[in-house]
């Protein structure tokens, strides 16, 4: 490993094509020592592809990489690590059935002997790094035992153990809770006195809080390069999306007063067997958005599953128009008029290999409208798909492409289109904008507000406080399977919600 410091890193004219896509279109960028460069762009703008080229995972079709002014060629990630560049990938590159130390060892030749491995050496290196940067990790814990935040720390420690002096972080906050995100940003600020950092994100508030300079990518091209200071979030957002972005707000407050869904004393077990919902009660009124705030893992998944009929209810009841829905089949819940936008859009929201047209009728394929005896009416299904594509601005090459090949935002639009076309009386939306860029977020927020004005009751489960405050009429906070408090949105604040999400209820704190 050479220890030559990296004073500057530059890419010039990088172009990369994938079948049918120009992912990077002649991109030029540069980063100096101890600098934090933020690379910003919507999903599919080419950020990750560019970074994979920098790490030697993809080979560029054109262009070159310069370190300290000299051209370098990275054939594999080993070459990149050898010059001191390390990357923390958006999807953590940690093998779940190995321990932390084993994951680090995988990349460290000097501790790999022929017939044995120097685990003590690896542990020592991990401890050194974790003390130096104040990143606590347990070397002998298995990855699958760790929370997402802990895995993030392990990724950082691993990359630093491998000798990285130049860090690339690809959307490092996308899976973190708000608290973990704040911690990470503070940490990166501290680390920048020691390292150079490229920070990729589409969350503009984080970018302006952290970076020295900014580069904005759109459709594979650099559309803006400059210093961060003096740039407003809304200005950056319009540069990023190519148009003015105004996230809509819920103007009027209060539902109709008519309760449509009543959850009483619900008890549901988690996958591991304990009560993830422990006597939860909640009621939803016609024409309101009820936001459910909480750090994920406090029972949100189990609540959504139970409401959709995907998880057994141990006790308690779910009353929809005074009719019991607990432990009914998903089909009868769908037919009762409850819509569902699931948390995991690829696993539960669509059938990825099915085409867009078929995914749009996943809940209606039995109806007389779409079939005649055992046969589909293909004209009807096509017409339905074309209408929904127009109404929901689903961008795809054709309605016959596999839904799984679409971008996250478009997959979410397919799901939204399918659910909203059914005119549900109640909609359960679980993290509906997670991982999406601002353009898609804006669109989804508009549709949810529109649905609300038509009288649908929406249960919005989210971790993004801005989203909850913008959209909800009332906000309830879930903590350890119970509702800690429910209040009208105008009577609350980010700070108040943050405390409640951490389990500190108002009276206790005062």
């Amino acid at each position: 490993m050479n220890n030559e410091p990296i004073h500057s890193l530059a890419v010039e004219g990088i172009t990369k094509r994938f079948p049918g896509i120009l992912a990077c279109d002649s991109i030029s960028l540069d980063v100096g020592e101890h600098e934090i460069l933020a690379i910003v762009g919507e999903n599919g703008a080419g950020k990750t592809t560019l970074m994979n080229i920098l790490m030697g995972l993809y080979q560029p079709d054109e262009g070159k990489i310069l370190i300290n002014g000299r051209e370098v060629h990275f054939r594999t990630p080993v070459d990149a690590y050898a010059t001191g560049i390390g990357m923390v990938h958006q999807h953590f590159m940690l093998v779940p059935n190995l321990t932390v130390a084993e994951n680090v060892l995988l990349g460290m030749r000097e501790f790999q002997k022929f017939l044995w491995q120097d685990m003590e050496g690896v542990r020592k290196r991990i401890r050194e790094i974790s003390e130096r940067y104040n990143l606590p990790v347990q070397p002998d814990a298995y990855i699958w035992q760790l929370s997402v935040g802990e895995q993030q720390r392990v990724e950082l420690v691993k990359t630093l153990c491998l000798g990285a002096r130049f860090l690339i972080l690809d959307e490092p906050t996308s899976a973190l809770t708000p608290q973990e995100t704040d911690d990470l940003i503070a940490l990166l600020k501290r680390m920048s006195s020691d390292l150079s950092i490229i920070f990729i994100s589409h969350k503009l508030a984080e970018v302006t809080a952290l970076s020295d300079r900014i580069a904005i990518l759109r459709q594979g091209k650099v559309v803006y390069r400059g210093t961060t200071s003096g740039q407003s979030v809304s200005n950056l957002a319009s540069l990023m999306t190519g148009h003015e972005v105004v996230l809509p707000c819920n103007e009027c407050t209060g539902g109709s007063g008519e309760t449509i869904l009543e959850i009483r004393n619900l008890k549901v077990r988690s996958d591991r067997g304990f009560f993830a919902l422990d006597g939860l009660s909640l009621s939803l009124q016609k024409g309101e958005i009820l936001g459910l705030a909480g750090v994920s893992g406090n029972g949100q998944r189990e609540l959504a599953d139970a409401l959709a009929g995907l998880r057994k209810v141990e006790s308690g009841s779910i009353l929809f128009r005074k009719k019991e829905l607990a432990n009914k089949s998903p089909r009868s819940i769908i037919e009762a008029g409850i819509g569902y936008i699931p948390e995991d859009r690829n696993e539960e929201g669509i059938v990825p290999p099915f085409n867009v047209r078929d995914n749009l009728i996943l809940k209606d394929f039995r109806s007389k409208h779409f079939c005649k005896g055992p046969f589909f009416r293909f004209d009807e299904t096509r017409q339905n798909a074309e209408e929904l594509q127009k109404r929901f601005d689903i961008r795809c090459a054709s309605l016959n492409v596999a839904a799984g090949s679409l971008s996250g935002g478009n997959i979410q639009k397919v799901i939204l289109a399918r659910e909203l076309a059914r005119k549900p009386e109640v909609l359960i939306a679980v993290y509906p904008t997670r991982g999406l860029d601002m353009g898609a977020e804006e669109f989804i927020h508009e549709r949810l507000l529109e649905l609300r004005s038509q009288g649908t009751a929406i249960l919005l489960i989210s971790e993004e406080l801005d989203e909850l405050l913008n959209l909800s009429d009332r906000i309830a906070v879930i903590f350890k399977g119970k509702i800690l408090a429910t209040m009208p949105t105008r009577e609350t604040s980010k700070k108040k919600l943050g405390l409640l999400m951490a389990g500190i209820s108002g009276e206790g704190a005062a």
Partner: protein
Amino acid sequence: MNILTFVVNVLSIGIPFSVALLLASTGEMFNQRAGVFNLGCEGIMSMGAFLAFMPAHLLQNTSLAPYANLIGIAAAIAIGALFGLLFALVTVTFRAPQGIAGIGLHMFGWGVAGTLFRYFVGGVTGVPGLKNLPIPLLSRIPIIGPLLFNLNGLAYAAFILVPASWYILFKTPWGLKVRAVGTYPRAADTMGVNVSRTRYQALVAGGMLAGLAGAYLSLGQAKMFADDIVAGRGFIAVALVYFGRWNPYLILGGSLLFSVAQSFQLAIQVLGIRFPYEFAVMLPYVLVIVVLALTPGSVTRGPAELGKPFDREKRV
């Protein structure tokens, strides 16, 4: 006949029976840990059995006779390595579907071995095979001695292989790479592990062990060759890997359980108990199915990417 003699009889047949399964499933375990399942195990075993048998058959009355078994075993290992390499080329480099490629390899190995046997040998011919090597002192322990310490060389090697392969898998850098590429090849790739090379190595090693398992069948167990000599053991070996949760010790347990059940059903047939023998023959297979069905599924320990080819430049 008292119960003790019956149990000893069952074990004295069952333990040697387990060796071929143990060798083949340990090899398959390395394949699967690296993310590739090889249904061609049975075909490799057929080829191994045939190539191990041939030198013993041809050199029987020549001056080379004392070395015939060693030559045969070496040939079996070599053909196993070659088949492993071929399978790696098809599934790792060309990314062919592993299930289909494995069935192809099985048919190929089985067919070639049978055809060559009919062409060069024709009828049933016995060979001297491997002699038992009693271990001094240990083999004289009552009951346990004859059961465990009076076996042939390959059998000892197979049992020593259990702790050895556990050590290789869990305590060496190579084993670490094998486990990583079978669970999350993309992560291994970003850490500089050569995914393809590691899978090639694991497939060649697994093929060698399958070839050796074949050699054990023809030289150590049957002391002859017939084209159905493997008789489904290659597929049982694949099942035992799942049964053993990709762990050498549990695989040893599975091999012993299956083989003892096999020898138990033979023993009750010999005893002449009024019990339809067709059901007795089914017993070991039913046992495997029942145990497999009852083993709790666990995704946190096994190779999660089993069966999926790796392509670095594929977009995720």
